[in-house]
């Protein structure tokens, strides 16, 4: 047939894109007079060569799984949710409120409550742009971007006022009660006798994120709703013919998307900071877009891409910490990865497709 086999599509092409990104990153590092090989070694050492490094890599990856899934499910309905950042921030607010104001007896119950509440807050924040798109045709890209700013402003307002404990200088909530503190990976893996660094923020939310991947996979490919979402995303005119309501699909998809972004807060707010600070999402909402692009909107791809970006985040932090390579260079590397895996996908894909077809042709001629 006239198309690429899946293993080329899912493995070879991203791998080549990544190599290209590494090559150009190396050139950039070399051009400021640093040693690119050393730089990559530091990044790998700092993020993958110790359980301490893994702890941070996995912590970041957990954030990116949630936001990557959020963007992915919206992509399946051909909706571009750029508002993951704002939805994650609002999710943080939801998690903070439920942790602070409900006396949880045990972290397990608190985790369930916080997951639901974070999801609800994130979904609610996505619901307004979704409604405007479905009923008024306001473009969701524009409205979700705007809602990121509104979310940031709202959090500013709350954190310097209502939610800030008295006599504290910092715009942050009080520490959450001890009963809501989630076990970190050291404790979780310790149950299985696996040694893991104590000093990392990676926590049990990682497993919630992995479960979310599975749930979303089932949702997209094995339920009526997922079928309707994908149909709508592939062809709005065909969905109309089939009696699939665009309003319903846009609303439901965006609610799920917002909920996933909001659930990220159980990792960064509840699991790591254990209080709500300003700008808690730290751009994870935007990284989610790159993760979804690179992961081809497939939950498993999202998982792998999230790991990669977790590595880039942690490795980049190490790089800035232990060399004179400026922090900005880390951003350059991350951007190059996004550029090559996301935006320039076609540049790699087209020649590989031609090559593959030429090889197939030779084979058929030879036969």
């Amino acid at each position, binding site marked *: *047939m*006239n198309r690429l086999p899946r293993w080329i599509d899912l493995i070879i092409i991203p791998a080549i894109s990544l190599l290209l990104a590494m090559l150009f990153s190396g050139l950039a590092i070399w051009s400021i007079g640093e040693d690119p090989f050393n730089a990559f070694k530091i990044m790998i050492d700092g993020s993958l060569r110790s359980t301490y490094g893994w702890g941070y890599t996995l912590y970041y990856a957990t954030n990116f799984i949630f936001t990557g899934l959020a963007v992915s499910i919206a992509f399946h309905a051909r909706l571009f949710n750029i508002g993951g950042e704002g939805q994650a921030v609002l999710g943080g607010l939801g998690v903070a409120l439920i942790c602070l104001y409900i006396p949880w007896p045990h972290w397990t119950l608190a985790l369930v409550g916080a997951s639901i509440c974070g999801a609800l807050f994130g979904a609610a924040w996505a619901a307004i742009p979704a409604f405007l798109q479905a009923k008024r045709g306001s473009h969701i890209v524009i409205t979700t971007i705007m809602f990121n700013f509104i979310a940031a402003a709202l959090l500013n307002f709350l954190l310097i006022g209502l939610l800030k404990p008295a006599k504290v200088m910092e715009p942050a909530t009080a520490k959450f009660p001890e009963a809501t503190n989630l076990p970190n990976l050291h404790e979780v893996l310790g149950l299985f006798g696996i040694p893991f660094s104590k000093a990392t923020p990676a926590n049990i939310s990682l497993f919630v994120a992995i479960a979310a991947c599975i749930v979303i996979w*089932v949702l997209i*490919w*094995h*339920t*009526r709703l997922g*079928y*309707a979402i*994908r*149909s709508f995303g*592939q*062809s709005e*005119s*065909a969905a*109309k*013919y*089939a*009696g*699939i*309501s665009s309003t319903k699909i846009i609303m439901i998809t965006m609610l799920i998307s917002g909920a996933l972004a909001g659930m990220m807060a159980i990792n960064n707010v509840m699991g790591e900071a254990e209080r709500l600070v300003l700008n808690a999402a730290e751009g994870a909402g935007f990284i989610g877009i790159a993760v979804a692009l690179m992961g081809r909107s497939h939950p498993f791809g999202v998982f792998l891409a999230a790991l990669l970006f977790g590595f880039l985040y942690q490795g980049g932090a190490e790089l800035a910490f232990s060399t004179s390579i400026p922090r900005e260079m880390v951003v350059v590397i991350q951007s190059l990865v996004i550029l090559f895996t996301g935006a320039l996908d076609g540049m790699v894909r087209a020649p590989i497709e031609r090559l593959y*077809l030429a090889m*197939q*042709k030779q084979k*058929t001629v030879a036969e």
Partner: protein
Amino acid sequence: MDQHPAIELRSISKAFGMVQANKDISMRVMPGTIHGIIGENGAGKSTLMSILYGFYKADSGEIFINGNKTLIPDSQAAIAAGIGMVFQHFKLVENFTVLENIILGVEDGRFLRPSLKKAQAELTQLANEYDLHVEPNALIEDLGVGMLQRVEILKALYRKADILILDEPTGVLTPGEADQLFRILGRLRDEGKTIILITHKLREIMDITDTVSVMRRGEMTATVKTASTSPEALAELMVGRKVLMKVDKAAAQPGDSVLQVIGLNVTDENGVHRLKDVSLEVRAGEILGLAGVSGNGQSELLEVLGGYRKATGTVTLSGEKIPLTGSGANGQSRRNMGISHVPEDRQREGLIMEFAAWENIPFGYHNAPEFQRNRLLMNNKAVRTETAGSMERFDVRPPDPRLRASGFSGGNQQKIVVAREIERNPDLLLVGQPTRGVDIGAIEFIHQQIIALRDQGKAILLVSVELDEIMALSDRIAVMFDGRIMGERLPHETDVKALGLLMAGIAKEAA
């Protein structure tokens, strides 16, 4: 023969990826003749002409124009070689005048006025010479399709084309307009122009061409003098096997009234009145054919009945009122009532092109209980099994449920849609353009399936712009023009000419 052919192709081959679109094609077209090229969709006709017009580069082979070897790397070169092309979809600027469109791209100098003046004079001359009258200062958007086609022909002639290629020129014309076009083509031939006519309609080939080449699966299977062949022989060459030209069907046994439409009105988003007081009835066990040039309200009628366009009026199905507005008016509730719908455009509506065949089988019926495993999950395995069965029963090739819809030929895509809708065993089947862009073999099959459903006592509303199809299948024929039903005829009491007049909006009872 010492005269050079106007066009000679020698061993032209062209492949797209793994698909061999043209295989070693040689062809000679003598000057001053009309040469037909006929073949099923995907036989490679359009590819061959695109090579001749410089859109594609042939992988191998040579082109000779008037005996001289000519390289045609782009359409500029084709025009320079005297080749003009009239596309199926007109390439005209809507808000320009006829004259402005004609000089577009061949203006001389920086200022328009002298070019327009010169064009005006030349246009008058061309118009008289070939009987091609068009108002030069009319805006394109105000002209009908027949006129637009003339503008395209004039464009080519203005560029000094001696060889005209027309790609499926009658697809959008009424029979009357098509006759006019053929008169113009005859005139052009008499004046010494060479014309290549690409079509899939046998009748046109027989009516107007001098010679005809038949293409099948990228190869040219025959070139014959039109006078020495017959439609049956050509059809056999196209398909590679004997084809029944006429659909066998017994007389209809109409039963109770199934669909009743009374006073249906539709006004679209732009305030245009699309359906005007449409009333019709379809009974069980009969096929009502709705004829008309496309764009006269047939699509809107199907959309209303299919549940995705709002309307006012009354529609009943077996006596039960169907909601035309509000939340009850959607495709899902229509399907639950027993209305199935083969939409006019399979690629835009009937199929999700990126989905595999098996994913397209529950499309529209994805809430049906037989496709569910339990309350949460769909039963993909059952769907795949079901699809394999449907594909076998409807002779879909290749019978591979995992192949994407976009990987099937037009005819097989349509069979998937028809299979899905007919196998729901509906009380009423809405069918729009069931065989548009479908090869002859599949047309035969689809027609048989529609008639078989009728014989099971189901009601069928057939919308088609192909009069032959309407005549062959319908038990009654209604003609639409400008959103109205112009009249109803019985197929054995009318003919193409009389229907053509109704389609053009001329409702003389004498017709």
